[in-house]
């Protein structure tokens, strides 16, 4: 297995520690003029999202992680599993609830997500920044009230609930920012 030594350390490196994939999110070189060079690194666990502080001395190395990012289309869910398909190879991948995390709120059939594979196995999925979802249920909209400062809950086709303005009706299509979970606008088809 390939590995990186300290002189190759840099932000963005994908490595593995104790079998888990990590992203190097910070790497600081410190060295007393007449002493040991140290590399102070912050590493984010790509499965659990936890951050680890590690110090290396020059000449140390870390095993490289085989990480690949692919475009994968969401197909359907079955029990606790979400099934995706690689848009290029048509290979199917199943992800569990904990890997999809909050992402399920935005997943409707056909949504193309970015998926991370570690040693060929999926470890996480990120929906596109904006998704358009159909409102399945909400209180009826107040006719003529186009104010956006009054909000109400609505339930969309994925089963998730979002806050939307009072004028939104059942059957409307709304655009949501998946990074914040915020309503952006009402859209036509």
């Amino acid at each position, binding site marked *: 297995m390939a590995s990186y030594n*300290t*002189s190759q350390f840099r932000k963005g490196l994908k490595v593995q520690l104790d079998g888990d994939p990590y992203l190097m999110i910070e790497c*600081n*070189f*410190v*060295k*007393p*003029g*007449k*002493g*040991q*060079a*140290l590399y102070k690194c912050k590493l984010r666990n790509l499965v659990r999202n936890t951050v680890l*502080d*590690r*110090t*290396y*001395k*020059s*000449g*140390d190395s870390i095993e490289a992680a085989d990480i690949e990012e692919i475009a994968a289309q969401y197909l359907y869910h079955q029990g606790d599993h979400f099934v995706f398909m690689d848009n290029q190879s048509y290979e199917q991948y199943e992800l569990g609830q904990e890997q999809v995390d909050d992402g399920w709120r935005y997943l409707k059939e056909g949504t193309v997500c970015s998926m991370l594979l570690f040693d060929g196995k999926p470890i996480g999925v990120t929906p596109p920044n904006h998704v358009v979802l159909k409102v399945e249920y909400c209180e009826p909209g107040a006719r003529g009230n186009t104010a956006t400062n009054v909000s109400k809950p609505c339930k969309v086709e994925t089963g998730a609930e979002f806050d939307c303005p009072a004028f939104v009706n059942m059957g409307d299509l709304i655009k949501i920012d998946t990074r914040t979970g915020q309503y952006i606008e009402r859209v036509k088809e």
Partner: protein
Amino acid sequence: MSHPANDDFRPTARWENLRLRAGLLRRLREFFDRHGFLEVETPILSADTVVDRHLDPFSTEIPRGPGEPLLRLWLQTSPEFAMKRLLAAGGRAIYQVARVFRLDEQGPLHNPEFTMVEWYRVGDGLDEGMQLTSDLCDALLRRGPAERLSYRAAFQEHVGIDPHTADSAVLISAIERCGIVPPASLSNQDRDGWLDLLLTERVRPHLGQKRPVILYDYPATQAALARVRPDEPPVAERFELFISGIELANGYHELLDPAELRRRNVQANAQRQADGKSPLPEQSRLLAAMQFGLPAAVGVSLGFDRLVMLAAGARSVSEVLAFPFDRA
């Protein structure tokens, strides 16, 4: 005008900082001139190189002729050897503004090619050497005279241990107490490695926050090219000046004994090989100069890029370099 997709032809320093840099260089030369120093220039590329466990030089090989082995030359990691040869040949007070090169040293405070100001004055002891260093920094940065703190007192204050007597186990537990995960490859026997880690993590950040601090009397095992004073325990007559937690200058009451230099070279190479590095040549013209006779002197080197950085209030040397290594 077209906009090139790649923007890395541009300098990373603003003109304002380049002007500040030029101004500091001018004032630095005035300072040395006023103090009776002669500016000298010596080769950047040399057949000799400093043998240090933690310094890796750039090198190049030059063909000499058919059937002859290549001549290996080194880019200097400091102008130390050449300047001491000048002292042996009659130099009294000399300084140099030199470009120096160190492999793999890159970060907010490091660039593999950097500018080092180095000076020597014959007849000085540790006290005079520290005074001149403090005066120079005060003249250029206006942060007041440096406070002096022994290496031992600094460790007692910030770590609560005596760095000269504590064994590795005590050093390791001091690291663990503050929640630092040490490099797995750091050997329990590598006492200096643990001291460096403590200095970096626990001591250095406090140094020179209010006013400049000079740390002096280093462990004898970290003497490099400084002489060792036979106190109990013996200490290296070496000092470093810190401002805002940044190491700015390093000075030695210079080692004069060629036999001792030979012994340290052998030891540094043994450590290099244990670290998986190639050994460096132990023979040099400095040894010949020392055998001829080197006058007692203090020598100091100062990181000029860091000095400019401090004057500019910058956070990285790239803010005061026209073109750092990745744009060189």
